[in-house]
């Protein structure tokens, strides 16, 4: 099964090289490992993240595409749906099946083998556009997003500047 997942990832990587998604560039962290991708996401215009160059890592499990990859921001990130260690928490990246502990998320919103890297990246960009504070990963960020938008903006701008410096 390993070859099968690798084959699929190669195909998706080529496809994204040929027809890139707006605001995103993809590559491998280490050319010998197709399961570990490095992503650069540009903050979408008109959002708080505008102007930022956010680096992230997308790590695929051996049983991809039946299980989803994990995505972690390497650049500093302040967002309700991103843990403080950079791990992205959105429903599409959650393993398929019901979760008794999480009523907000139906099985249909979760990972399905039909989905690919493109779908994930689109979801991440839409997450930057529109944070979901219903089930936050970073509670402090979510609180600030809800209660003190100015402070939230300031903190995000810091992240944007840092990401620019690091680039």
């Amino acid at each position: 099964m390993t070859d099968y997942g690798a084959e699929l990832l190669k195909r998706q990587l080529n496809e994204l090289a040929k027809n890139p998604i707006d605001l995103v560039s993809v590559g491998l962290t280490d050319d010998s490992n197709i399961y570990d991708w490095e992503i650069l996401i540009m903050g979408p215009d008109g959002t708080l993240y505008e102007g930022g160059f956010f680096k992230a890592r997308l790590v695929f499990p051996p049983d991809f595409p039946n299980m989803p990859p994990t995505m972690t921001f390497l650049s500093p990130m302040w967002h309700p749906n991103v843990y403080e260690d950079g791990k992205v928490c959105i429903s599409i990246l959650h393993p398929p099946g019901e979760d008794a502990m999480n009523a907000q998320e139906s099985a249909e919103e979760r990972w399905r083998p039909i989905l690919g890297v493109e779908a994930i990246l689109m979801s991440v960009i839409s997450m930057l556009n529109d944070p979901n504070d219903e089930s936050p990963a970073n509670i402090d960020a979510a609180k600030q997003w809800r209660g003190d938008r100015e402070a939230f903006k300031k903190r995000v701008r810091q992240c944007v500047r840092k990401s620019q410096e690091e680039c």
Partner: protein
Amino acid sequence: MSSDEYNASDEEYEYEYTDDEDQDVTMTTTHNDEGEEEEDSKPPASDEKKSGSNKRMSSGSARENPQGAPVGVFDFGDGSSIRMLPASELKPIMANQIKEVVDVLDIPPSAASILMREHKWAKERLFQAFFDNPDKVQEKCGVKARCSGSSSIGGADKVAKTSGKNRATRSSSKRKHCEICMDDDGFESDEMICMPCGHEFCELCWYGFISNALEKGPLCVRESCPQAGCNELVTEEEVKQAAPDLLPKFESYQLRSFVETYGMTRWCPGAGCEQVAVARGATADGGGIAHCEKCTTSFCLKCGEEPHAPVTCRDLTLWQDKCRNESETANWILANTKPCPKCHRRIEKNQGCNHMTCSGCKFEFCWICMGDWTQHGANTGGYYKCNKYDPNSADDNDQSDAARARRELDRYLHYYKRYHGHSEAQEFAKKSLKETEARMVALQEQNVDSTWTDVEFLKTANEQLVQCRQVLKYTYAFAFYLQDNEKRQRFEFHQEMLEKFTENLTELSEKPLHEMNRTEVVNQTRVVDKFMANILKYVDDGMED
């Protein structure tokens, strides 16, 4: 087993299980099922089939519900309430349930199985919901497409035709495209497997998808279509096509789910045991104790715990939750060893009796209250007084929250300590039950002309002890939740008697073999059994005098 009243019911069960008439009913039902299963592959609802099932209804059992569905499957016909079956024997029962739904609703068996599961195998509830709003039920349970087509291929065609654009290429001779692996070469039609919802993927992707789903365990029976946003469920039909080698595993998960959601069945909790307890009558909620002959486990049918009379399932859960939450505190206070009250040497209790003698200073004391054992004599009027919680011993006058909390903790610890003590003693008794046979052999050799029956009293006594410890253990959980003071006092009287005689019997049966007094042990066993029956009856009778 030694007791009379307590075991009378055991014998009753055993007798009833082997009842000939009972066997007949089961055999007939099973046989019919097999006969009809072969017909299952044909489209349902032919006239011939209907008459077939009618025949079975009338021959299977005299009892029929108004809708004409047989209730005979679990009618043991002999008044017994619980029986144990190997899991494999439940397959025909499950198949039979599914078949009835197939007949009534005219849907494929794979969909019927899901609908029943989602309605906890309550046929009437399903029928009612289904006739009320079939679309809603099918949609909710993820079988909508499956129910609207007569077979998976037909269903696929239907959707392909109606859903237009994406599927336009399907009907052409062009090679098909798998959206999971996006293989550039595409696939022939026979290399693709299609869900009733019209979503099709290549064989290789399907295999990976299904084996991955099965690795997730029991939840695999709720796996939905690989397509994002599609809630049509994957069934044995797809597994059969895509991964026939994994079908037995999938079916075993289906059966497992049946046993777990069907109201009248419960897995034997014995480690690795594949037996299932099946209740007669309404539901397993009716309670009762199941005895598994295979692994000799006894358990409560309602909650699956070991038999826990006199405490109710509900209070038992509360109690266990409480014990779990407070176990840190309790464990800290109840370390495995206790210091001798006199010389403070740490003492480990490695036998069941509460009458301790310190090996250092020879001081005799009670393990429960750590008081002088001589104080436990009848002459002081305080024989085994340590089973009673005396709130007056705590400081009652202090009404501060802290003091109240401490009193409540004291009250809990009082019961927990004793619950825990008997629980440990029960384990000791179980352990020594295993060693009893060796003791019996030794005892027989000691007296030249004694027979095996002459030494069997040792085993009987030991089994009695295991039971008594179990009941005693739960009397403390029961008493913890007993609000009524007067009732509690009377209950504690019964408890005290049982406890006292259980300690006596423990001590007698643990004596060195050359001091063993058969008559004494036999008598004590009988007496203890009487007290055990008394306390259980007292609770059963609603604790009225």
